[in-house]
């Protein structure tokens, strides 16, 4: 029920700018995820949207109306704090029900909703404990519970699942998604978990040092990162980058580096110094020579469960490849490396902006 717009929002702490001229519109009912390296200003942005922090300059609009001067308690937003901020003097039940109590919801309704939220979060049997007596993950769930019982215009969730185990996280993710559908409100989500970001979001905004790098759908971000930073940031294990240059060899446009020489389809008028990007899953390995593959040697291989992450050394360059389990070559074994030509990224070596990306999203 709310479109949230940040207009030229800047936030400084004593001279240090942590959010820099941010412009971002989160559409009504959108699920937007904020990602970015630690300390890039995600929490600060949420806090400004929420009204806990006032922007040094710029404005926040809800549904087109400026709210910069509206205190948080009048903004009708729910928030999960990164640090939980549970009320230590209240039981879990009171913690979760507090906002409802503030809205003068009848006692019985509160109880019912708290119970239901607790069930969803699997903390039903902890309802009468104080936060002090909970484990880290349990506290985080209480913090989440405090937000999900609410009926707010916008939900801000600051890494709400970071301390939960994978199982639970999957479940909680589903619950949050379902809540999003159910209440049809705007969600702004901060996470460090790429799977979360990729699977849950309508759009992802990538922040770096307080500046938005790209704001687009998950596919777009993954497939067509706007610059090298986004490309490297999204995707784990991260994209391989090889510095080199473009050259025309026999009328074929080629990317060349010490180790690689790869034909590449690219429009004209690009700078010569470029960086080639290729994701590990787009690197194929073969124990036997294959046409167009380069020979390298296995440097190290790490099992990731279903896959194996193999680092291959070609000349002086290291390339990571993600191949399905089993992979049985040992250190220094010769291996042949091929790059999926359809899924190559090219960035300017100078400023890192994307020069080309796979034409076609997966």
């Amino acid at each position, binding site marked *: 029920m709310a479109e949230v717009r940040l207009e030229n929002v800047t936030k400084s702490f004593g001279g240090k700018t942590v959010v820099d001229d941010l412009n971002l519109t989160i559409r009504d009912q959108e699920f937007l995820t904020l990602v970015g390296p630690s300390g890039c200003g995600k929490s600060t942005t949420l806090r400004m949207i929420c009204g806990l922090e006032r922007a040094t300059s710029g404005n926040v609009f809800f549904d087109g109306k400026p*709210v910069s001067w509206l205190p948080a308690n009048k903004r009708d937003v729910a928030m999960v704090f990164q640090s939980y901020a549970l009320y230590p003097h209240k039981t879990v039940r009171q913690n979760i029900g507090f906002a409802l109590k503030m809205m003068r919801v009848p006692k019985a309704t509160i109880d019912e909703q708290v119970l239901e*939220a607790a069930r969803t979060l699997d903390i039903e049997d902890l309802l009468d404990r104080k936060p002090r007596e909970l484990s880290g993950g349990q506290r985080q769930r209480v913090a989440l519970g405090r937000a999900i019982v609410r009926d707010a215009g916008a939900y801000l969730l600051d890494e709400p699942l970071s301390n939960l185990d994978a199982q639970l996280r999957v479940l909680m993710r589903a619950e949050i998604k379902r809540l999003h559908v159910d209440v049809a409100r705007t969600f702004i989500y901060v996470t460090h978990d790429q799977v979360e970001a990729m699977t849950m979001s309508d759009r992802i905004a990538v922040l770096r040092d307080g500046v938005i790098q790209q704001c687009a759908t998950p596919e777009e971000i993954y497939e067509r990162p706007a610059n090298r930073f986004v490309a490297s940031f999204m995707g784990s294990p991260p994209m391989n980058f090889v510095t080199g240059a473009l050259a025309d060899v026999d009328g074929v446009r080629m990317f060349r580096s010490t180790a690689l020489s790869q034909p590449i389809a690219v429009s004209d008028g690009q700078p010569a110094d470029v960086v080639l990007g290729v994701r590990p899953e787009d690197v194929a390995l073969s124990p036997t020579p294959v046409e167009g593959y380069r020979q390298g040697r296995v440097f190290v291989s790490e099992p990731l469960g279903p896959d194996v992450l193999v680092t291959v050394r070609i000349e002086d360059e290291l390339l990571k490849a993600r191949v399905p389990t089993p992979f049985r070559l040992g250190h220094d074994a010769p291996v042949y490396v091929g790059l999926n030509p359809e899924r190559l990224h090219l960035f300017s070596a100078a400023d890192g902006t994307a020069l080309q990306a796979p034409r076609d999203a997966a």
Partner: protein
Amino acid sequence: MGHHRHHPPHLGRLHRPPLPEGKFRSMTTVVQVPLRYRVPFKKIALYVLAVAFGLYLVLPFYWIVAMSFMHEADAIAVPPSWVPVHPTLENYLGFVNPDAAQELVGGRAVSETPYSLRNSLVVATATALLNLVLATFAAYSFSRLKFRGSQVLLLLYLLTRMVPGIAIIIPFYLLMRSFGLLDTYLALILSYTTFALPITIWILKDFFRSVPRELEEAARVDRCGWFRTMWSVFLPVAAPGLVAAAVFAFMTAWNEFMFALFLTSTTAAKTIPVVAANFATDFNTQFTVMAAAGVLAVVPPLVLALLFQRKLVQGMAAGSVKG
């Protein structure tokens, strides 16, 4: 999947409370006017209150200060003049120049004032420190350890403070006399410590309680023994409580009168309240000199307060633990 998770295959949607329409439902209804340049009511209220309290606190004292710069006759003039019309320093002169004190009522008190200020400072500071040390130990036990008899002990501490001083002054005097401590700092320090200790323990135990346990644990893991943990981590974090407790003990010692009167007799240990009392006799009261002494008596604690006020209002454990 964990046996303890029994999620229904399809979780029903959360029931939302039927909220009064238009009141909280959405921010669209809340944000009706662009609240851009709101009058900062809170700030205004804050300043109004601050000024009101400031006046309430300072006006009576101001009168003392003003009087201390007046001649006796002006001080009781009708209507009163709010600033000294014939300002004079003569009320203060005696304190620095004993000869000038001779002619005043309570001239001897005037000459004793500097000593008594020194005594008061020594006694109050020592009391505050001794108190902090003793109370820190005890308060720690109440805030961190579960032990049998803790509640009773807490009450007992309080009880010792609840017997009015008037009932114990004579036996106390006897005790101090038998210790041979009359007219010494130690007598005063010890008695004020016993007065302040129970309350200090109560004060500190509360503040200690709000220091996150994890901090202490972290210090232990960082190889601090208990004392080191207390000194390097626990106490600095509990600083506001310590300052509050120290101020309490200091002030208790600073303005206590009765015990000081009974336990001291010379400038070796007489404190400022005892000496200040000498400015008012049955026969005469040297208002203005007494006011000057009062002003002098207030200055040291006030300076201390200014020095320590920052500690008192520093947040305790911001940003240290998550959850």
